[in-house]
Structures are given as C-alpha cells and as structure tokens.
C-alpha cells in the first residue's frame, strides 16, 4: 500500500494539441478508493494510464509511495490494473491468467498455486480455473481480470471502467463487491468510470475531470452539496440540477415574469447583475397552479411525468418562457399529469449560485 500523488501531471499526445490531461493535482491517501469521473474524452483513462506507466508523463510528476514514477516502466511500479475489456490472455487458462503476474515476478510455483486458489475462492472462480477465457461469460471474465489484479497484492489497483461490459444487474452487484473487497484488502485504488452512480457509491473521494482539467476532488457528499462550479453541478446528480442564468432583482432573481425570492444570506453573495442559479430537482416545492398564485413562485406546465414508484420526476416548461425547461422531483403517485399547471418554490436554503462568466461557485 502506498499513497499516490499527481503533481501537475500532464499528457500531450501530439505536440501543439490540447493536453489530454492538463496539470492534474491529486493527493490520494494510503488505502483510499478514489474514483475518476467525467464526460467522454475528459482524460480519465489517460490519467490512469499515466499512473500505470502506459502513457508518458510529459510534464509534472506522479509519485507512488513518495517515489517519482517519471521514466519508471510499468512492471517496476508495483501496480495492478483491470482493463475495460479485461485483456485476458486468450491462450492461457483462467488459472494461468491469474498466476501470470506472479510468474513474471519469479514467485515459485507452489506459492503461485496457493495464491491463485485463494483469489479464485474469493471470486467464486474455483470451478473455472482450467478453462480458457473464451469459455467464460462476461461476468466471469470480469472476475478473472479482478483475480489477476488481486493475486499480487500490489501497492495500487487501477481500474478503467471495469464494469461497463456487464449488464445492469451484474453491474450493481459487482460494484458492491469491488468496493467491499477494496475495503477488506485496504489497497489504494484508482477507479475510472463515466457512470456517476458508480462514482458516488464507490469512492471515498471522487475526482471530476473535464477537458483534461480537474474540476473538483472531494467526497461524494461534498461533490453533490457543494459543487465547485456550474459544470460539476450539472454533471453530478440525476436528473441534472436545474441551472438558470438570470437577471438579479432586489430581493432575488427574475425567472420570466415572476420573481424568485432568495434568502438574504444567499442574496448577499451575488455581485454582478446576472447570476447562474442552480436548484436540484428535489429542492423544489410543488403547489397546484390554480390554488396559489403566490408571490415568489414560478409557474410552469408539466410536459412529461416519469413515475418511478418511490418518486416521480416532472419535466415542465416555464409559463413565461417555453424554452426554459425545469425538472422537479416529487413523491411517487402524486397524481400530476401532463398539461397540469404547477407553481414551484425552492424549499431549501442550499441553493447554488455560480458566476455566469467563470461558472465558479459564489
């Protein structure tokens, strides 16, 4: 086990091009489970592969256990990696696949066998040790890939979207298994995913990348509650946070013709005459549109109702501005229908305000 530090680490694939990873700073503690998340092409895989020694570190440093990894080949980094398509050796049996990293390190045959058996036990692969990867299901292959990583008890586990080839149900169960196994083994883990649910449920901390740059590195709760900028706010949470850029008024902000009052403390943080306001779907209170034409509420008309059982999502557009869509989470079976008039009021003080230019949190 070791801590991992990205210190201004950068990767440029072709000279002159935009860096795929741009001066990334991360300090990952020993035994921590860190998830790299971000939209496609944001540089997650590149960052992970730099740590793995599969991509050059063009600038800055990456340190594992305090040792600078620049120029250190993969095999000397004491890491193990689970690949998206598993990258099993097609000509080797499951057992030989798992034993391979040990064999390469000159571990004697008996110990190899013993460790492979132990790992196979944990992963429920004991019956498949003599099969070739071709004869396994997707989920089993995924386990073999995991097994190959854990047999060696490396300093750091690296995983690049290891669950993306599994069906939805397998993904959920394997997610929990991986997280539990990591806690038990206590090995520092860097995990790449584009699935924010995975990110939020698995990671001790989550690093959100966009365009090769780190947007925020925080616990899942803080990422959700205190997004560092509008991008993070919009990326984390499903359905996404409602983001409106609005003119500032005396007591709040204007949405269309109605005024949305903001708590004093929130109001005081606004400096310019426009502001980006973020309200999560669950932060709306919904009233029937006919009853209260109350001050401070926003009138909207429901377009689609997504009934999920425990909750329902209302997709609506504002009365004053049909272009502006808004998402609201309500309790399940609220009886809302398409075409209903509703009035929305923010229920929480924890509204998010962002600078409309820079996107930074106010």
């Amino acid at each position: 086990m070791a801590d991992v530090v990205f210190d201004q680490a950068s990767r440029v694939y072709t000279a002159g091009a935009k860096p795929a990873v741009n001066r990334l700073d991360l300090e990952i503690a020993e035994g921590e489970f860190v998830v790299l998340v971000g939209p496609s092409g944001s540089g997650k895989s590149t960052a992970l592969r730099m740590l793995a020694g599969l991509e050059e570190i063009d600038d800055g440093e990456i340190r594992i256990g305090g040792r600078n990894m620049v120029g250190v080949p993969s095999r000397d980094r004491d890491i193990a990696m689970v690949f998206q398509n598993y990258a099993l050796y097609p000509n080797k049996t499951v057992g030989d696949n798992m034993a391979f990293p040990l064999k390469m390190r000159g571990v004697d045959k008996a110990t190899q066998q013993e460790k492979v058996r132990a790992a196979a036990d944990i992963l429920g692969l004991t019956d498949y040790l003599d099969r070739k990867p071709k004869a396994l299901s997707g989920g089993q292959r995924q386990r073999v890939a995991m097994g190959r990583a854990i047999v060696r008890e490396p300093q750091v586990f690296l995983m690049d979207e290891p669950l993306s080839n599994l069906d939805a149900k397998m993904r959920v169960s394997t997610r929990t298994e991986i997280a539990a196994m990591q806690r038990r083994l206590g090995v520092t883990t860097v995990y790449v995913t584009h699935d924010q649910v995975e990110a939020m449920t698995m990671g001790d901390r989550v690093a959100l990348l966009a365009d090769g740059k780190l947007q925020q590195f925080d616990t899942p709760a803080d990422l959700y509650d205190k997004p560092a900028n509008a991008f993070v706010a919009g990326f984390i949470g499903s359905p996404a946070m409602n983001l409106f850029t609005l003119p500032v008024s005396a007591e709040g902000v204007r949405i269309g013709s109605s005024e949305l009052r903001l708590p004093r403390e929130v109001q005081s943080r606004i400096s310019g005459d426009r502001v980006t306001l973020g309200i999560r779907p669950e932060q709306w209170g919904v009233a029937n549109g006919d009853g209260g034409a109350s001050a401070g509420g926003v009138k909207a008309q429901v377009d689609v109702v997504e009934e999920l059982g425990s909750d329902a999502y209302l997709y609506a557009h504002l009365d004053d501005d049909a272009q502006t869509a808004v998402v609201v989470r309500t309790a399940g079976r609220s009886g809302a229908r398409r075409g209903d008039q509703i009035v929305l009021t923010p229920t929480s003080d924890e509204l998010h305000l962002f600078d409309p230019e820079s996107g930074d949190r106010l």
Partner: protein
Amino acid sequence: MTVTEQRPAEIVPRQPASAGREGWIRRAPLLPALIFTIIVTQLPFLFTIYYSLQSWNLVRPGSAQFVGLDNYVKVFTDSQFRGVAVNTVVLTAGAVLISMVLGLAFALLLDRQFRGRGFVRTLLITPFLITPVAAALLWKTVLFDPTYGLINFVLSPFGAGQTDWISAFPLTSVMVALVWQWTPFMMLLTLAGLQSQPHDVLEAARVDGAGSFAIFREVTLPHLRRFIELGIVLGAIYLVNTFDAIYMMTQGGPGTASANLPFYIYQRAFLGFDIGQSAAMGVVVVIATIIVSTFALRLIFRSFQTEEG
C-alpha cells in the same frame, strides 16, 4: 406451466419443407468449381496411375505395354531418386523454416512506428513479387557470378576470393534464392498477425510485470501461432513444387546434387521421355505428399477452428 408438461419431453427440430431441393439450390453455386477442380486436377492422377503401370518411352513409339509394378521397383531401387527425395525435403524444410524465422524477425522490426515504415515494407515485399524465373536468373548472374557477382564483391574484404558458389554449394545456393523470395511472404503474414494483436492484452502484460522478451514469449508468440502455421503450410505447398529456381540456376546439377523431385521427374519425362517411369515417381510422390499433408491439413484445420471458435 402445466401446458408444457403435456407435450413430449424431447423437442426435435422440424424438417424444412423441401430440404432436398433447398439443399441442391444451396449446393449449386459450389458445383462448377468442384467439377472443374476434379476434372483438371484429379483425373490426371488416374492417368498417372495408369501410365505408371506401363513401360512407355516416347522415343520408341508404340512401345507402351503393361508391366505391372516394374516401374515402382525401379523407383525404389533408384538411388538417385532417394537422393533427390532427400534434397526435396531439405530444400523445402530449410527454405520454409529459414524464411519463417527471418520473416518473423523482419515483421517484429516493422511492427514499430518509425520514419519511412511504409517504404521499407514496400522494399521488403518486392522479392516475393518478382517472377521466380527472373529472380533465379538474378541470383545466378548478378549475385553469384564468381567474377562479377555482388556476393563475392561484398565478401572480398573477408577473403572470399572468386568462389563459384553455385558449383560449390548448388543446393544451398538454390535455397538462398528461395529464402530471399519467400521471406517477404512470411513477413507479411506474421506482420498481419502482429498488427491484429489487441493492445490492451499487451498492456496488461506490461502492468503484470512482463519484460519485452517475456511478453513476446508468453503473449505474442501464442497469438502468432496461427499465422506462423498458415505461413508454414502455404510456404511448404509452394516450395515443394520448386522448379523454376533449379531449372534456371543449376539444372539439378552437378549430377542430381541439387535436383528435387519436380525437377527430376521433369527430366525423366521430358528429357528422358520415360513416361512410365516418371509416372511411377509421380505416384510415389503423391502418396508421400498425402501422408505429409494429412498432417499439415490437420494443422490448418486446427488453426481455422480456433479462429472461428
């Protein structure tokens, strides 16, 4: 739930309505090629067997007469024939293996990013495209000529003098020319294999702690196996039939020192006009080939099975 239990336990596939006719429609496109191949390639062998039982020399018209297995007895007591058979094996196996090893090495060299890669590949495949007769001529004259040849010129600093390579080492000389022609073929095949290798598996091996040599031995070579087998089988098919190079470079000589079976049989048939004798040799060669090639076929068969599996 109960409904299914009333049905017969075993489910058998239903026969398509017109299986027979349908089958013929499906087979029809295959027939022209099949019939053509049988007529042009199989019938002659029947004639070969027939001729092999005759004593028939074209120089003596009307000499054809049935002699039973006489020709075969002659074939097996012909010490030249045995020598030529050994030559064939040596030439084929040697050329195939050497060109495979060289081809693999060149493919590994080419399987990297570097300036001028496409150009170097073009240079390397050219010997395979050259007409074998022209290639043999090239080796015989421009390269191996004792006085004006490039080989002796290049080797002169090492005191090679004016060795007449073709006279001194006829079989080896022929083999060198063949290796030169077939290395590109092997290289193309193994390069294709190298390039079809999934990247992530190679990376996984690196992370798992394998050095370059271990990756080659444990990951790359098993992956290449199918391509190598294919190269060996195809190379052997063509090289066993080598005729042009021997005809051009040595005429099988001195004596039969550099003759292989195709050349020897050709000599017997077209220079000795001994149809019966050469037909018998042909039959023997065919039988030997069948034995070797069932083995080879099994190889191809296996490699193509795994490919589809």
